[in-house]
């Protein structure tokens, strides 16, 4: 039987064999109480290839500068807190491994674009969630299911909207969209994804309401199909395809 251990396990020497690198991070800092404009600050951090960018931010905050400010929670890509621009691309810091970046050059980290900058890597998420709320992102069913029973839905009908149920509302897509950058009124990809999730749910009866909302001048027709959103989605949702399906549904009606 194993026993609880009082001494450190002797894995330190073995771990030392794994090579650590010094990686330079250039982080766009901003504290509106102090700074007139955002500024870039560099930090050198000892990292392993399998470390995540979030690990680097933590090492900086915990060992060098406690004032570095960012959001994070689950640290494995499911809560959607830590979307940021890493080397110019929208990604989750907790899903971006050092080995997948070119560390011969500094790694640039900045807040996502298109939402008001609050401090360092933190933006005001409220406009993003306001767009989300506008598309009525909840089931609206006219029929009552049999008391104490589930509504019946075939495997095939469930599959139609499977992809868009994966959304974690991280805003990586919306804040990667050039249309959203220039026109903050545009609903943005994430709101459309969440409308799609209900428009194509066979249990829902309010597709026409949502399609009307998205037929607005700030709706789906603003999409210029640049695929930035699809590239940015950390959940692998085919965002541009979902937007195209909503466009089709506006023209031809819900399938």
């Amino acid at each position, binding site marked *: *039987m*194993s*026993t*609880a*251990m*009082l001494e450190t396990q002797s*894995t330190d020497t*073995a771990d030392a064999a794994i090579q650590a690198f010094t990686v330079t991070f250039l982080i766009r800092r901003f*504290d509106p*109480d*102090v700074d007139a404009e955002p500024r870039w600050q560099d930090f050198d951090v000892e990292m392993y290839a*399998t470390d995540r960018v979030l690990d680097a931010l*933590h090492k900086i*905050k*915990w*060992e060098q500068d*406690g*004032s570095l*400010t*960012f*959001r*994070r*929670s*689950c*640290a*494995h*890509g*499911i*809560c959607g*807190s830590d979307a940021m621009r890493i080397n110019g691309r929208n990604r989750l810091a907790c899903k971006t491994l050092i080995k997948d970046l070119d560390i011969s050059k500094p790694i640039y980290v900045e807040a996502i674009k298109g939402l008001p900058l*609050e*401090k*360092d890597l*933190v933006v005001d998420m*409220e406009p993003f*969630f*306001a767009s989300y*709320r506008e598309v*009525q992102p*909840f*089931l609206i069913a006219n029929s009552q*299911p049999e008391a*104490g*029973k*589930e*509504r*019946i*839905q*075939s*495997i095939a009908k*469930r599959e139609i909207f*499977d992809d868009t*149920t*994966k959304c*974690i*509302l991280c805003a990586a897509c919306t804040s990667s969209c050039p249309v959203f950058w220039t026109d903050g009124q545009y609903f943005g990809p994430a709101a459309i994804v969440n409308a799609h999730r*209900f428009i194509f*749910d066979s*249990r829902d009866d309010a597709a026409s309401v949502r399609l009307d909302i998205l037929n607005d001048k700030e709706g789906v027709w603003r999409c210029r199909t640049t695929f930035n959103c699809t590239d940015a989605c950390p959940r*692998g949702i085919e965002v541009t395809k979902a937007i195209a399906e909503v466009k089709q549904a506006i023209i031809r009606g819900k399938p």
Partner: protein
Amino acid sequence: MNPESAHVETKIVDGVHYHQYDIVIVGAGGAGMRAAIEAGPGARTAVISKLYPTRSHTGAAQGGMAAALANVEEDSWEWHTFDTIKGGDYLVDQDAAEILAKEAIDAVIDLENMGLPFNRTPEGKIDQRRFGGHTRDHGKAPVRRACYAADRTGHMILQTLFQNCVKLGIEFYNEYYALDLVMTDVDGVEQPSGIVAHDLATGELHVFRAKAIIFATGGYGKIFKTTSNAHTLTGDGVGIIWRKGLPLEDMEFFQFHPTGLAGLGILLTEGARGEGAILRNASGERFMERYAPTIKDLAPRDIVSRCMQQEVAEGRGAGPHKDYVLLDCTHLGAEVLETKLPDITEFARTYLGVDPVYEPVPVMPTAHYAMGGIPTNVAAEVLRDNTAVVPGLYAAGECACVSVHGSNRLGTNSLLDINVFGKRAGRNAVEYAKGVEFTPLPDDPAGPVRRMLDQLRDSNGTERIGAIRKELQEEMDKNAQVFRTDESLAHVTEVIARLRERYRNVAVQDKGKRFNTDLLEAVELGFLLDLAEVVVFSARNRRESRGGHMRDDFPNRDDEQYMQHTMAYLSGDPQSSLADDHIRLDWKPVTVTRYQPMERKY
């Protein structure tokens, strides 16, 4: 704060914002939002959360939610009740387990009716899969009881509950850190009258006056290093209750989930084994056959975690350091992995560079779930001792201890717990609020929090938050994890005392008001130190092995002495670094209805 909603009776006095609601819910995970859906239509309700609701850790739950729907094979809520009691090694309160299993069916149907996209059977009903410890007819064979949405069931529950909160126009105060429960002395009895919260965006304090308060603040897995828990799971709610002198129950029982990605702790759902994945040691042996011949890899988590540790301790671990075992999914085929287990397949690929379609995945136990917490009765009312309730105060979800999980929770019973007892908390809080007037607030209710924050921010301390927390977490992993002894627990007791001394000298580098996460991390560390101390103190006192609490020096279950709940109270000098100076332990009887304790074999 949701700008669409009306501000309710806000005033500002001496820089502190005052709000008034019938019901205030602290925490916007599954339990909090389920309570809000129940409370919102019947009472003026606010939800305050340190995160945006969709960031809550309910969203990380993967495998399923148990309910004896019998959609795919014969099942009954009685069997579910029995499995829950046996799974909890007979420390479960049996009346509560019966409610959990009975109300599970409506809880799942409620979620489906609210829109949750469960996986479906060929007939279009909710599909169900196998999970650890859930059996047919009192242990005869595994049963398909877990309702699921791929391996993102928790994500879909969190999203569905949030969607329905949006539908109902529930008022949220996002990124507000609750830091104190305000109690008012009414005729010699302490009554809850409000919550004090710190608004992360502005650094300002808010007092939420309420008739009823529901705690749904989740767990505290960050007392350990290797954990499936989010960085934000620092036990603030449980810590607040503790500091008020209210008891905490069964804190020694912490669940270590068997299949965390080795070295990282990121969770791989038990649903993988439910779908047929197998644990193997270095030689490829399916070692669980030796330990649990009937249900093998689907034994409850405490047992599987111990067996894995034992395989490694006896030299049968895999890898260059023989320090992990392997989760073999290769025979499941790409289609099952991509459709039923897509997220964990991606986790293994992303974080370990291992493709589960072709290679077994290195795994080891990871700190996952607190069975203990704020004691409540089955109405979700918080207890102030073994029997008396604190009127108007409720708790539900991981922060609470009903106790439906006893000394070891079964997989899929936590998503169930948050729905059943979240709903009960919300419903009962409305009834309570309807019948009472507001309790008056004491003078300067935000005073203690303001002083705590000012002291931390203004201190010229030299100790780094990160350094203290790292040492705490590493020492807890080494000494209070799957296997414990009096020696290891005594050692970590001394470590915690030393860390509590150092914490007095902690440094907050960020001196600003806006988004000061440095300051909040210091506060969170204080809660972690408090809770780790209670966990270890309670563990040392339980000189037996039961469920998630395995004592190498007392390897057997001792029903004669220990078939009772631990109740820990803060009493004496709370400032002292020594646990002996301020923790008092008591016992609370286990409620036994139908099932007498038996030897726990699988």
